[in-house]
């Protein structure tokens, strides 16, 4: 099997559609037209880099104020008005929410992608694909509201059980007594629901490109369907799946409204994830503090936003490189 499986089928050549390098002398209208196109590109570049440049300039005040050094990360409190810019709890909280979301949603999404591609009746395939893509466009505030009313209450009972019985594991503890509703874990759980359509949609498309003849060869040699999945489909689409999962992490990091609606943060560094008043979140901090913040506080919040942006950016770039290497036409 091993000699069969990971070999890629020859990629279909784009039937001689490689553009020829034509040496045409541009006429005057061509120059004007190209100027228009280049001008609009320059405008787009200017606008988008202006966002980063302007926010960096604005956040720089807080960066200077915080005293350059590692105090940004070692200071335990976030209170820019009294010159404390400790963003460790906020950053860790944001990352924790994204990680919980992805750890919960990735296996489920991959199972769904496999179900649509390999297990479901063929007639259902277009319908299921359409439904998953459609669910990816449902606004996150709707997911957040639904999760606030339903999911965060449902998860409270198992959370209580975990705290009562398995609290020797540091993450299954609660930072403070109280309801288990507005926790980091609840946010991660609701974000997981929003991420499922994204990971499913991308990984399904990647898996569908696994060479069909190799799949059939595996079945023809007497392999089981699961054997075909593990030895042909998954090795072929490994990169694409990894990229899809990383894009899910990026989406979870940038999620604003769910965290804003559900979380009740305490802004102190802790490993306990199952109750309120624990880790904070960058998105929560910006949305709830922004309108009443003093200029220096706003500058600190901009700095927070930039750090979130930077983290997301790195993850997205890595994801895109990995997906590109898998030859998938998605994204």
């Amino acid at each position, binding site marked *: 099997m091993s000699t069969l499986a990971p070999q890629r089928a020859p990629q279909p050549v784009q039937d001689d*559609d490689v*553009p020829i390098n034509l040496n045409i002398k*541009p006429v005057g209208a*061509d120059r*004007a*037209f*190209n100027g*228009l*196109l280049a001008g*609009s*590109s*320059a*405008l*787009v*570049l200017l*606008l*988008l880099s202006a*966002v980063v440049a*302007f*926010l960096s300039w604005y956040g720089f005040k807080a960066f200077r104020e915080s005293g350059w050094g590692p105090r940004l990360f070692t200071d335990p409190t976030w209170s820019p008005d009294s010159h404390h810019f400790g963003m460790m709890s906020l950053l860790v909280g944001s990352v924790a929410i994204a990680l919980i979301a992805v750890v919960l949603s990735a296996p*489920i*999404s991959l*199972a*769904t992608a496999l*179900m*649509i591609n390999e*297990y479901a009746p063929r007639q259902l395939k277009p319908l299921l694909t359409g439904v*998953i893509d*459609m669910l990816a*466009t*449902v*606004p996150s*505030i*709707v997911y957040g*509201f639904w999760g606030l*009313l*339903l*999911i965060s209450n449902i998860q409270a009972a*198992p959370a209580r059980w975990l705290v009562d019985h398995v609290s020797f594991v540091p993450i299954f503890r609660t930072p403070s007594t109280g309801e288990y509703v507005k926790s980091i874990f609840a946010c991660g759980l609701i974000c997981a*629901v929003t991420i*499922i*359509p994204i990971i499913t949609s991308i990984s399904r498309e990647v898996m569908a490109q696994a060479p069909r*003849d190799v799949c*059939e060869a595996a*079945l023809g040699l007497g392999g*089981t*369907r699961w054997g075909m999945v593990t030895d042909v489909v998954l090795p072929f689409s490994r990169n694409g799946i990894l990229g899809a999962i990383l894009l899910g992490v990026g989406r979870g990091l*940038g999620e*604003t*409204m769910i965290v804003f609606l559900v979380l009740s943060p305490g802004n102190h560094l802790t490993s306990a994830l199952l109750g309120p008043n624990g880790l904070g979140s960058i*998105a929560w901090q*910006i*949305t709830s503090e*922004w309108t009443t913040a003093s200029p220096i506080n706003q500058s600190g919040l*901009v700095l927070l*936003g930039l750090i*979130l*942006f930077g983290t997301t950016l790195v993850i*997205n770039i890595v994801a*895109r490189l990995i997906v590109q290497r898998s030859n998938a036409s998605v994204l």
Partner: protein
Amino acid sequence: MTQTLEPPQTSLPPQEEPIVDRPGRQRTVPLRTVVEMVGSAVAAVAVVWVAFTVAGITGPLGFAFCVVTAFIVIYGLVCWQQYGMLPMKDRLATVAIWTGALSALIPLVAVIAYVIIEGFAVVFAQFPHFLLADMSNLTATSPVTAVGAGAAIVGTLEQVGIATVLTVPLGVLTATYLVNNSNAFSRVVSNVVDAMTGAPAIIAGIFIYLLWVVPQKEAGQTGFAAALALAVMMLPIVTRASQEVIAIVPGSLKEAALALGSPQWRSVVRVTLPTARVGLITAMILGIARVAGETAPVLFTAGGNPHYNWNPFNGKQDDLPLLMKELIFQPGNNVRRDAWGVAFVLVLVVLTLFILARLIGAKKPGPSGFTVPWRTRRSPEEEAEL
């Protein structure tokens, strides 16, 4: 002489039908398998029920979890005993995959079901009223017939409309440039656009707030400011999507146009863009659907307004996501009920856009292609030349 000339047209070359290569698959489930599965399921429920009764535990969630675990164990043992190791793995994997897929689909379908059931009751309580009234009569106990999302619908339409008008031409022109040129500049633009597609939505909101709203003090929060924030989010999405659509236009079409002596600009305007038209419209609608539901960019920029404000350039304006957020944070159950109504309208708008995009996208650029209305006939001079 009444010779009718065929209008010049653009079309894709006829595609060869791909060979349909479908795997053969066993269709019917043998009776034996059904018996094994049902038997294992009954055994699992029985075992867990006895265990729960003896231990005195209750809880539907824990019960379901334990039943599924017990079923997998029992069914695995049955299969192992009946068929051996390899088929057991295969069957357990099938069970695991269906379980995983169901646990993904159930919450997703539940979201839509909740929005439809809860929202339907609000929106259709007194039919067009909720879509037309504004929120000026909102109190914690006000009945659903007193309030409505009309002002927010107007706001969303205007803000998203302005954002579309601002970004689509710019995005399509830039995408055309990026596809047709491969130099250092185009690579930089392409990478920056890529990077901004993944930016957290809140970034767009605080950028426009600091740049546009703050300098204007009180008058800063308008529908137009919200539209700008949405445009910052939408620009990279539209550019990137158009780039992908334009890139798949067959190069042979462009070359044919150039070979017939058309200048480059005309080959783009008359051949490339018309051929990509369907894809461009789809990309545009998906971009609109994506930003229409975004809350973070409009959070600080639109301002929110319980009354109708038709003018996006003056005064605060409401929109659907913002109104929903406001309602969620208001005290009182009735207000929450109204939030479901807003969610219903919002999801309806987004899903309608999505389905529209799919319907248009499913239409292949047909053999007739696209005729540019202002150039369908040759001018008399050109005709004389022929």
